[in-house]
């Protein structure tokens, strides 16, 4: 075999091994959540509590507040879930063992993002049904559902990117339950604002709606770069 063919073969094998590792890492996280059943049931029930509290706090403006209530429930429920995920992982020293196995940090970061996003997207879908029923949302068309799905995807991506980084930071403190919301929520505020505002404009996607979408994309890109750059520092710190 000539040299270049050998190089191509080696890089193909390496890529295939990395893909395999990547899918195993995602499988591990999802299987762990499936067995523990903490994030999704807890987040869903928390979401229903938020919906009912919003309903009784603002009875006159309930359909106008639907978008805000939905993202409020998801972000706060998401924080509770993040803490549980982190607790499970540190209790079994999973991250330390993975690092000992010389898994690349980028792969670890990416797998964390994908598995967290998958859980968040399921939670979003679970909460969307009671949202429509409890907030009496009418005039929902197929295109508004598609735009809603895009908002949900961008919000889940942003939350997963910065949530996994800052959960690892807060996890090192003695008061992680206090630290995580205090640090994460202000940083997530542009995503929360954009998702709520875009959600309110779902029925009528004007230029303003697209400007909120652009903002969510900018947030995801910036936080993606920060997360990728800083995740190794957080993992290395013990």
């Amino acid at each position, binding site marked *: 075999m000539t040299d270049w063919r050998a190089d191509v073969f080696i890089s193909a094998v390496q890529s295939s091994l990395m893909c395999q590792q990547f899918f195993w890492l995602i499988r591990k996280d999802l299987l762990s959540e499936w067995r523990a059943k903490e994030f999704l049931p807890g987040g869903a029930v928390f979401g229903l509590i938020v919906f009912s509290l919003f309903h009784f706090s603002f009875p006159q403006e309930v359909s106008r507040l639907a978008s805000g209530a939905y993202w409020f429930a998801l972000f706060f429920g998401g924080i509770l879930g993040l803490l549980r995920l982190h607790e499970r992982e540190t209790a079994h020293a999973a991250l330390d063992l993975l690092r000992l196995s010389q898994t690349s940090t980028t792969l670890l970061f990416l797998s964390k993002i994908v598995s967290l996003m998958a859980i968040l997207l399921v939670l979003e879908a679970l909460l969307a049904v009671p949202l429509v029923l409890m907030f009496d949302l009418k005039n929902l068309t197929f295109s508004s559902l598609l735009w809603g799905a895009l908002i949900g995807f961008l919000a889940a991506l942003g939350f997963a990117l*910065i949530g996994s*980084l*800052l959960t690892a*930071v*807060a996890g*090192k*403190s*003695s*008061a992680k339950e*206090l*630290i995580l919301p*205090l*640090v994460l*929520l*202000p*940083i997530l*505020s*542009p995503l929360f*604002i*954009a998702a709520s*505002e875009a959600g309110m404009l779902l029925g009528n996607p004007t230029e*303003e709606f697209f*400007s909120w979408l652009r*903002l969510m994309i*900018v*947030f995801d890109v*910036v*936080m993606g770069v*920060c997360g990728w750059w*800083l995740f190794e*520092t*957080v993992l*290395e*710190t*013990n």
Partner: protein
Amino acid sequence: MVAIRNRFRDKLEKGLPLAAVILMAAAIWAIFMIAPEEATMGEVQRIFYAHLSSAWVAFLAFALSFVCSIGFLSTRSTSFDRWAAASAEIGVLFCSAVLITGPLWAKPVWGIWWTWDARLTSTFVLWLIYVGYLFVRRFISSAEVKAPLSAVVAIVGFVDVPIVYMAIRWWRTQHPQPVIGGGEGSGLNPAMAKVLILSFLAWLLLAAALCWLRVRIASLEERVGRIKKQT
């Protein structure tokens, strides 16, 4: 060489706070005695000198914290970490002053204490982010863990602020447009501009003195910690 450095440091330690106090007194005198009364807002407008100077100093302090955090992650030098922490504390202090003087000025002028406008909200979120940063520093006891993790929070937090500003820029804007570099129709009366520059320098010197003292305290605390470990 070390003796000269120590002597310079001692002089700076005494001289900087003294100079800050003198310049602050001069600035306060100028605000009340030299600056002309604003035509529409009257006497209450004098709070502008404290408000704007605090805002500029707070942003500079947060920027310094951001740069020092990057410096720490690149070099792992603890002196960067000390400066990052001190400047974040000073930034929170001056940002608190902005958030207090703003409503005090807004109530008589706008008729309300607070509005969720772009400038106000982004300043408030900035303050919240750095209060979170201080909480991270407080609740992580080990210095080896605290320094890199708080650097991560400082970097992410500072990068987030322009996005927060964009996120709320479509909201109604009650806050006036910038008086300096605000385009056509903006600008200050020359006497007001001189007092503003003096106030900014006084506030800046005060922040520098406080930051310097905070860094010195942190460095002495580290020394005490090391001595305690040895004994």
